[in-house]
């Protein structure tokens, strides 16, 4: 069950309520968006690493040295 805690810091009153349908839908949307972003980042990082490996092979430099050129 998804619950949300509301804290009124003036009165120290705490209320736990269940999430509304809209809130659950928003969280699901954020989770899907996040998963897509993560996949994109991992793919971009993999491509970057592959490119660095190629440059290292072609140049004779180490991957660490190639990396340092781009920082």
């Amino acid at each position, binding site marked *: 069950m*998804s*619950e*949300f*805690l*509301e*804290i*009124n*810091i*003036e*009165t120290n009153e705490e209320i*736990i309520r269940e*999430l509304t349908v809209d809130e659950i839908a*928003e*969280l*699901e949307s*954020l*989770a899907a968006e*996040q998963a897509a972003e*993560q996949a994109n*980042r991992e793919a*971009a*990082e993999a491509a970057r690493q592959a490119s660095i490996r190629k440059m290292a092979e072609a140049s004779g430099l180490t991957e660490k040295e190639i*990396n340092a050129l781009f*920082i």
Partner: protein
Amino acid sequence: MATTTNYGWETPDDTDLVKDGALAQRTTASAIDTSLYNITGGKNVGLVPLYVGSFSGVTGVGFSNVFSNTYQFYKVQLQVYGSAGNQPLYARFTENGTPKSSGYYGASYVATVSGTLTYGDAYNNTSSFGFRYIYGDKNYINFELARPFTTQMFLTSSIIDGSQNQIAQMSVSNKTGSNFTGFDIFAPSGNIAGEVKIYGYRNSL
């Protein structure tokens, strides 16, 4: 002359005359007044604790009645634990309990401690903004707010010592909101737990 143990404030001797009591009280009070002023750096300075507490087993937490005209600047310190692993912790401001679900503009920058991965995120009129990332434990988030009750500026730094050792910096503002009174934090999946401390900066000396 008798004095106190720690600060050496002058107090009356047992043999002092009763008729000198008023002067003795003024002398002691004046010494205390001076010490307090020097120790605190001013008459009304420093951080004022507004809330200290913890939470667990919930999808999100909303803090209400936090911001007002009393303080212009605030500090929030969070130690958050996420049950779902690698995911951002989202946040948004609230206006008298109603979430402000638009108008967030900002940018974040994330790097691993080893420096092998860096990327940035931009927020362009989004419905919330994310602290990236939280993991199972040891996610420390500290953020500073300027004038959330009038105009909106929001700064944060997030130091994360989870499984991937990521560090994030972020700045976010909201151009369209007004009179924010609180804020929500929530995770897109799983539950969160943690501790929170909220402070207000005194406005004047």
